[in-house]
């Protein structure tokens, strides 16, 4: 390569198996979480007030497992591409997986069964993995210039990560040690930092790149991206301090800042979608619309809770809107779109054109997943509001069916790619 030139595509793309194993683990944790919830049944959901058990385990399999694994895999793949510089230490990605994936599995096991040692071991490994991830991202961002909007979002996400890991480890220890006077308030602050801070800011940052790219819309204006970060920072600060300090008014101010940040962010994205080149929005966008609606709803519910709405059932509904509603819908939408696309990118070898991404998709599986996922959210919400068991059963079953459909979709991508390669090899020999 000539000096002064940017890294080539081959330099910037990680070997497909590296991000691939993160995405595969994310899909399996998603399946495991829904099966665990289905196995625990509606009573576990109706009586959930926090603490270890299958609901907390499923929640962490979804957040740390599906959302975290996807975020790590996507960040490792996308950061070198959007910043135009190869990862300095790609082998660190292997260590990240070795630490993080078993850590999440152990944490899930330790939360399901009364195994405090396994739980702490899992939490520590997960925390170490996230610390390694933060170090990799910081090191990478220090080497590049430009992409200011993405850099600001990532910086805020990493700041939130520090807080959520510290609170998370404290909460795990508190199950045995009883350190905190108000365990539920600390858990809520931990959830705010995780859902809106770390995962939320990663989703905001990568949305400004990915959504315009997927719909072929114009780039998001720098000013809109900057404003959303400047509004999100006080939102997180007020929300967390308000929860930890027991101030509903401060938490409510945080929710209002959060709503303003989300409105600025969504208006900018909607503007790009409106002026897109791609006439027909692809099926994955159904989940994106759903995730945006759930994000707004989660903040409205959070505001209501801060202003004194009863925790039963509004706290669980807030968690439902935040995790499976906003974050899971968004992440699964992005995975649905990006898995065949990444596989197609890596399929271009020996000067041959890549396989068409659309040939690697299984449309019935994504349709079934989208319907099942939305039905699960609606039925579980109805069951919690009405205090009825049968909608919860149906909702949990729909979630599990959706997870199976998504697993089949994800597994179909490498399977179809291998068939394409086999056909290519056969035609070359013939």
């Amino acid at each position, binding site marked *: *390569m*000539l*000096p*002064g*030139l*940017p890294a*080539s*595509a*081959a330099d*910037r*793309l990680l070997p497909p198996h590296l991000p691939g194993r993160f995405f595969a683990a994310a899909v399996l944790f998603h399946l495991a979480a829904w099966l665990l919830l289905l196995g625990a049944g509606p009573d576990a959901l109706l009586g959930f007030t926090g603490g270890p058990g299958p609901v907390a385990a499923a929640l962490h399999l979804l957040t740390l497992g599906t959302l975290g694994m996807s975020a790590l895999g996507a960040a490792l793949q996308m950061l070198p*591409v*959007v910043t*135009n510089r190869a990862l300095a230490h790609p082998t660190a990605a292997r260590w990240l997986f070795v630490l993080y994936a078993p850590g999440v599995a152990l944490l899930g096991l330790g939360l399901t069964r009364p195994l405090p040692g396994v739980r702490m071991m899992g939490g520590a490994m997960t925390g170490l993995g996230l610390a390694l991830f933060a170090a990799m991202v910081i090191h990478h961002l220090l080497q590049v210039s430009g992409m200011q909007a993405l850099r600001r979002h990532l910086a805020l996400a990493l700041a939130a990560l520090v807080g959520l890991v510290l609170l998370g480890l404290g909460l795990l220890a508190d199950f045995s040690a009883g350190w905190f006077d108000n365990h539920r308030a600390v858990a809520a602050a931990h959830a705010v930092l995780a859902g809106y801070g770390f995962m939320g800011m990663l989703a905001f940052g990568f949305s400004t*790149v990915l959504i*315009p*790219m997927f719909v*072929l*819309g*114009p*780039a998001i204006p720098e000013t809109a991206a900057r404003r959303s970060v400047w509004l999100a920072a006080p939102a997180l600060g007020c929300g967390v301090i308000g929860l930890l300090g027991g101030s509903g008014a401060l938490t409510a101010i945080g929710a209002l800042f959060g709503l303003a940040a989300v409105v600025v962010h969504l208006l900018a994205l909607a503007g790009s979608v409106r002026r897109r*080149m791609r006439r027909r929005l692809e099926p994955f966008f159904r989940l994106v619309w759903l995730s945006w609606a759930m994000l707004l709803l989660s903040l409205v519910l959070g505001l209501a809770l801060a202003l004194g709405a009863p925790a039963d059932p509004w706290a669980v509904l807030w968690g439902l809107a935040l995790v499976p509603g906003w974050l899971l819908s968004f992440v699964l939408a992005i995975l649905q779109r990006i898995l065949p*696309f990444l596989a*197609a*990118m890596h399929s*271009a070898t020996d000067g041959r*054109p*890549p*396989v*068409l*991404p*659309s040939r690697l998709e299984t449309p019935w599986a994504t349709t079934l997943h989208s319907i099942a996922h939305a039905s699960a959210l609606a039925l579980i919400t109805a069951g919690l509001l009405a205090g009825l068991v049968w909608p919860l059963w149906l909702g949990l079953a729909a979630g599990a069916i959706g997870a199976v459909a998504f697993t089949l979709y994800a597994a179909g991508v490498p399977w179809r790619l291998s068939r394409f390669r086999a056909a290519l090899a056969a035609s070359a020999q013939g």
Partner: protein
Amino acid sequence: MSDPPVSSLLDVRPLLARGIDPYETVMAAAAAVPSGGVLRLDVPFNPVPLRRALAREGFSSHAQRQAVDFWQVTFLRDGAEGWEQRTEAEILPEGAMQWQEEDGFHLDVRRLPPPEPLRVILRLVEALNGVGRVVVHHDRDPVFLAPELAERGWAIVRVDQAMAEIRLCLEPERR
């Protein structure tokens, strides 16, 4: 009528050979040229985007090929009125430049934020309706372009790392 005096001479070939983008150097030299003065540039190719950029600063330009990889471009600071009509390049809404040469349509998408290069390239490809060739002047090897092109029946047939740019040659796939 005698030619105006040359105010500044600049050979950017050594910079390009070292992989350094000479854009800032040329713009600084151009800023020092008085009204009615001339900046002469030695370059290895016809720098159409640069000519467009300097037209916005009031420079008319004339390029002459001296050898296979040696062009001499004369910039005259005369206000550049009517230069837009005389030039061969068109500025697209996103800021990309498009012009036609013997080997096909050329698109300069350097310095555009993502995903604007992708939009500009795909729009031209779709407009060409499966016929012709597009040469893209890019500042990066675009990772997401190949699958999008494949969906439209086009392919990247060649990638050249030229001086301070990556040049992609796109053609309809021969299936």
